[in-house]
């Protein structure tokens, strides 16, 4: 098929819209509600064009290309209507910064967005650095609006976990409703109200977690304005780090695009936008990484209390302390959340260095409280796995972990572990295939990855041969890796469709204890309306 756009003859494919053909050939037609993975909605009316033989101004996103079609995208009528349409959109949107003629000076003086409670302009909008509405407004050169503002002045909804909804910024493009429907069949976020009262929200104004939301965040990802936003990410600036990696939270193996600024991860989104993520992958990683009580420095018991020491001192202390427990009086307890390499190192340490048969790896889904084999007197724990009385019976406890636990209170030494996106190596997905884990950010404080700590310990125990061999093996393995990300998922991961399947613990710690929102995603009953009519 061939169609003509502005005198250029372009090849078109069956099923493509006029807009898609044009975009594929780098002919820009302004558009907002169109998104490549969604069926055309045709509501924003930005993509209007003239087509010979068709009355009026059809929307190019919802008009299928037909052989011989002659399209004009830049006639005077089209340009005027398009501009006026955007002016109308801006009437409901806080647009002072868009039409301010001191804009450039302001941008030069304060390029960063400024945090605020309620957004009243681009300068304090979470979307400031990457905004389609802003770009269009500047492209079309809008400087004045036809009448006064229709700012909605509605309540800013900040009560839901992870997702914030400021209805005052919404331009009602409908992408959120569409993507939610696309992923979950029945949309949770919908257009409600008519005419001037139209806005985006949940049916009956229920909270998201009483409306069936799985907190996949797809609506946030697609929202072209700052209306729907990620509470954690909203006030970060432009990412200075971008890494594509496997989600480290469960074995679904979703591929993430991770953004960081100044050594802090602030957002993780799905690499394959056609499938949703679960609330852990989408929202929980940044807050879990940076929760206040992370263990960040090696500490060793000195007298009555734990004292901060250097890694060298910590290794020596632990090596000396564990030396008497070689054999089956030693046990190591870990779960499957670490990389393949980390777990390999832990096993080698237990079986080869400590000569113990008690390498205990908790399976996912198991109640993370283990009973130790009889005779065990010393343990190395990578998480919160032991009950208090089990701990009491021990002579030595070494904690290699990320957050405080009852074990950490009884520990002889605490070795801070790098976790999640602070680690690199391989993760195994639900089908047993190895997937790459890339490091997106440096570890918190002085934390190190498990295998680095283990080789440090082995070295301190005087077994430099084993330590060197282990390090060498791991490095080559990562270097020569051919593992690939799941860039196209065949199906949505189970927890993304059913929040009750979301993993609740990491290294034995309740995730919700560190990130309360992660607990709040679980469905709640709809509140009974206070006034019964």
């Amino acid at each position, binding site marked *: 098929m061939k169609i003509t756009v502005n005198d250029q003859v372009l090849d078109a494919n069956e099923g493509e819209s006029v807009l898609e053909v044009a975009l594929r050939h780098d002919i820009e037609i302004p558009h907002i509600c169109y998104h490549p993975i969604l069926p055309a909605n045709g509501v924003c009316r930005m993509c209007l064009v003239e087509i010979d033989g068709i009355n009026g101004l059809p929307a190019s996103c919802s008009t299928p290309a037909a052989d011989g079609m002659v399209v004009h995208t830049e006639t005077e009528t089209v340009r005027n209507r398009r501009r006026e349409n955007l002016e109308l959109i801006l009437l409901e949107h*806080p*647009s*002072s*910064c*868009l*039409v*301010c*003629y*001191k804009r450039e*000076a*302001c941008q030069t*003086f*304060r390029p*960063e967005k*400024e*945090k*605020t*409670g*309620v957004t*009243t*302009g681009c300068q304090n909008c979470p979307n400031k650095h990457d905004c389609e509405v802003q770009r269009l407004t500047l492209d079309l050169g809008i400087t*004045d*609006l036809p*009448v*006064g*503002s229709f*700012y909605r*002045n509605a309540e800013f909804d900040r009560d839901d976990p992870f997702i914030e909804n400021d209805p*005052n910024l919404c331009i009602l493009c409908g992408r959120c409703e569409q993507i939610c429907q696309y992923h979950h069949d029945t949309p949770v976020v919908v257009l409600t109200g008519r005419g001037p009262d139209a806005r985006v929200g949940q049916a009956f104004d229920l909270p998201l977690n009483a409306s069936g939301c799985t907190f996949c965040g797809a609506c946030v990802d697609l929202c072209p304005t700052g209306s729907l936003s990620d*509470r*954690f990410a909203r*006030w*970060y600036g432009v990412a200075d780090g971008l890494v594509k990696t496997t989600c480290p939270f469960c074995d679904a193996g979703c591929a993430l695009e991770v953004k960081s600024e*100044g050594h*802090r991860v602030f957002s993780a989104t799905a690499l394959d936008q056609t499938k949703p993520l679960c609330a852990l992958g989408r929202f929980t990683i940044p*807050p879990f990484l*940076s929760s206040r009580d992370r263990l960040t420095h090696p500490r060793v018991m000195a007298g009555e209390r734990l004292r901060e020491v250097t890694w060298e001192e910590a290794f020596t202390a632990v090596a000396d302390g564990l030396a008497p427990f070689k054999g089956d009086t030693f046990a190591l307890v870990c779960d499957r959340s670490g990389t393949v390499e980390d777990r390999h190192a832990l096993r080698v340490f237990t079986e080869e260095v400590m000569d113990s048969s008690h390498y205990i790896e908790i399976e996912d889904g198991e109640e993370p409280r283990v009973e130790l084999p009889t005779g065990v007197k010393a343990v190395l724990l990578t998480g919160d796995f032991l009950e208090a009385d089990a701990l009491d019976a021990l002579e030595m406890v070494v904690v290699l972990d990320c957050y405080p636990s009852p074990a950490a209170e009884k520990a002889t030494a605490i070795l801070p572990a790098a976790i999640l996106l602070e680690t690199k190596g391989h993760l195994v997905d639900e089908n047993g295939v190895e997937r790459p884990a890339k490091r997106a950010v440096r570890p918190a404080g002085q934390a190190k990855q498990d295998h680095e700590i283990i080789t440090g310990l082995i070295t301190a125990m005087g077994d430099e041969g084993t330590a060197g061999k282990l390090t060498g093996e791991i490095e080559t393995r990562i270097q020569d890796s051919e593992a690939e990300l799941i860039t196209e998922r065949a199906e949505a991961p189970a927890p993304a469709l059913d929040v009750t399947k979301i993993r609740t613990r990491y290294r034995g710690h309740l995730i919700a204890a560190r990130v309360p*929102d992660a607990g709040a995603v679980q469905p709640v009953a709809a509140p009974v309306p206070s006034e019964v009519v």
Partner: protein
Amino acid sequence: MFRVVSNRKVTPNAHEMVVEAPEVARTAQAGQFALLMVDEHSERIPYTLADWDEATGTVTFIVLEVGKSTGDFVHRQPGDEVAHVVGPLGMPLEVENFGTVACIGGCYGLGGIVPVGRTMKAAGNRVITYVEARMEGMHYYLDKYESFSDEVVQTTTDGSNGIKGHGVDILEARLKEGVRVDRVFTIGCPFMMMLTAQVTKPHEIKTFAALNPIMLDGTGMCGACRCTVGEETKFACVDGPFFDAHEVDWHELRDRRAAYIFTERDVCK
């Protein structure tokens, strides 16, 4: 404890908070501010005194909701209490009959400029007041300005209310028309105060801007509120908050205000 007497939302992101603080109300003078702590553990936040009433023992703040502490404050309802109100702090303005005084306000400065204008009027000045806001529905206190001003102009950046543009544009236009202005006072965001300074400088009109760096103790001890004015280091809490706007290092002020941005973001959740 200090009782909140009223809490009124004046714009989508600002509240007028009236708090009982008789000692502050008794001694306040134009240009001063007070430090407020919502509870025993919260940050100490400076707010310009937007009004006070010795008779009822109350002071008025315009509070822009920006983050954790301001958010906690604006959620206090009448009858609730806040832990501390310390003030008045800072140097009162020098008040005399200068001739014509221009008051340029924006943002929370729409409230902060009121005592300045009122005092200047009482001292016999001709007072002109140009106030800017982002859009319709973000202006307030028109009646107050009218009570002390010889001319009031409201502007909005998007043109949805009053004249499209900034308050200082009106000043610039008046100066071009040949209107004589002897002194300018400006309260608002650093950018807007900087613009004001840029306009008045070629006309050599003494201009004072109320600086709003981060403050801690408010007594000149901690140095948190350090700013550079005319190549000298000043402490906004004791030497200011009003300084000669032509001498202020605006970029430094901007950077220092963003010093704790990581922490500010994290506590917002």
